[in-house]
């Protein structure tokens, strides 16, 4: 069990999301940064898709009432365990009664706390992800609050090769290039509009949250006769709608369908980069093909498999 001493800015349980219910209008939710979720879980000795605490901007302070191995991955926070500084992307053992202060975010925007064995909350529609707007899933359908006690499932305190359980997590630097696949409705925008989208810089606005990122920047010109609206159709994470001239990117808590034309979709390997951006950050877009996106994702999967194999290796073979 874990007691919440301070909840942080926005801390919710998230896994890989609620798949299979979009046809009923149920949003997928799930981790904003799946790469950090997967990395944290592997380091903590879990399956990659186990539910973690998604931590945003300012981290929580938690007391471990049970001895447990854990790891933090993703954005650069300033964690301490009983006052001793910890590294990000490394597994540690927390003794009973120890206090983890995740601290403030110094780079990126979100990190994930994985505890060995996972959090013992019920599956709702096959997922432990919190859907905030619908108030279901995760821990009581909401962000954690001071005084909550989060139940754990049979955690281990010590894992294989404990001192070597670390990984690298590259954070975006400068003005990141977000790769997109054009469409499904890029024909609703003029050639000039598409050039604006791919050549100009955009800034994340103040309303950037788990539902979507509103960007500020030059307006994207539409095709003649197109008013921006389409007959509602399916959306994906990373769909770039253009409701009023500037991009709105659909993120984890997006609706399942939408009525604005979508100029492009962010490639899945770059969604973690976007998840680590915060209001005020600048980005640019570059178009790639579906095949190129698949190749990048394959590289990512190979890297995660290699990490998992390395962590499972008997200590003598390191």
């Amino acid at each position, binding site marked *: 069990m874990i007691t919440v001493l301070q909840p942080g800015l926005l801390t919710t349980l998230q896994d890989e999301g609620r*798949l*299979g*219910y*979009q*046809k*009923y*209008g*149920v*949003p997928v939710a799930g981790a904003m940064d799946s790469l950090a979720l997967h990395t944290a879980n592997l380091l903590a000795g879990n399956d990659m898709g186990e539910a973690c605490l998604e931590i945003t901007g300012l981290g929580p302070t938690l007391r471990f009432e049970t001895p447990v191995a854990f790891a933090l991955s993703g954005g650069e926070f300033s964690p301490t365990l009983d006052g001793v500084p910890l590294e990000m992307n490394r597994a540690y053992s927390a003794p009973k009664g120890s206090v983890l202060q995740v601290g403030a975010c110094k780079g990126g925007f979100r990190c994930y706390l994985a505890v060995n064995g996972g959090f013992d909350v019920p599956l*709702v*529609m096959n997922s432990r992800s919190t859907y905030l707007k*619908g108030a*279901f*899933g995760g821990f009581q359908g909401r962000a954690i609050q001071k005084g909550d006690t989060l139940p754990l499932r049979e955690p281990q305190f010590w894992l294989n090769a404990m001192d070597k359980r670390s990984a690298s997590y590259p954070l975006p630097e400068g003005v990141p290039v977000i790769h997109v*696949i054009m*469409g*499904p*409705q890029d024909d609703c925008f003029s050639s000039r509009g598409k050039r604006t989208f791919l050549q100009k810089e955009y800034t994340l606005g103040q309303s950037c949250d788990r539902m979507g990122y509103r960007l500020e920047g030059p307006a994207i010109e539409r095709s003649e006769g197109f008013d921006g609206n*389409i*007959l*509602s*159709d*399916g*959306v*994906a*994470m*990373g*769909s770039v709608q253009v409701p009023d001239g500037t991009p709105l990117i659909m993120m984890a808590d997006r*609706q*399942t*369908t939408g009525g604005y034309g*979508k100029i492009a*979709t*962010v*490639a*899945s390997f770059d969604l973690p980069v976007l998840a680590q951006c915060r209001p005020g950050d600048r980005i640019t877009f570059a178009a790639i093909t*579906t*095949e190129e*996106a*698949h190749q990048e*994702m*394959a590289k990512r*999967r190979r890297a995660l498999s290699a990490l998992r194999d390395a962590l499972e290796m008997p200590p003598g073979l390191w």
Partner: protein
Amino acid sequence: MGNVRFLPCGDQAVTVEWGSTIDEHINRQVHAFARKVEELSHPAITEVVPTYRSATVHYRPEVLSYEELKQLLLSLTQGGPEETEELPVVEIPVCYGGEYGPDLEEVAQHCSLTPEEVIARHTAPTYRIYMLGFTPGFPYLGGMDPSIAAPRRKEPRIHIPAGSVGIAGEQTGVYPIVSPGGWQLIGRTPLRLFDPQREQPILLSAGAGIRFVPIDEETFRKMEEKEGKRA
């Protein structure tokens, strides 16, 4: 099944599109296709989301490349007839007017009808559920009598209770969860269209039909109590 367009929706989804209008014939093709995709239970396909005129298929590129997926989906759009069997029809009990339908009088006035006539025309047709979206379990319905069409409210409500039945333009619908919205509210159903804890969280399915059945306040309260206990 006519000409379809394949529109990549990122690197893990593709939208298969039949047209760009609200059309029952097109929508039947969409749902027949979605059902065929589901019946395949292909390990590469994670889910399929049917809408008015297209279906978005979410897939795992590590199992099937985009070209292979496209060929597979194309084969499912060919040959087979559109959905022909009679749709299952779900009856939705509705208490019209009063505190449950605060805008019924206004809608009646706008349409130069009595509230009773609005209710009669709203309960007459069998509506087709073209798609679910907007919120969990929200049905986009087709088939409303245009003589009871009414514009959206100038001031949207911040809090519309779950189960509210409304009209907006030539559309009618039911709000499954508490939401903000600008629809004219003419009644409310005691049924829970969405309950995340229930074995079948969503009551309605796209492609099916629904009919509204008028009930009185006493019946509403009794049914609401029963629904509450089940949750």
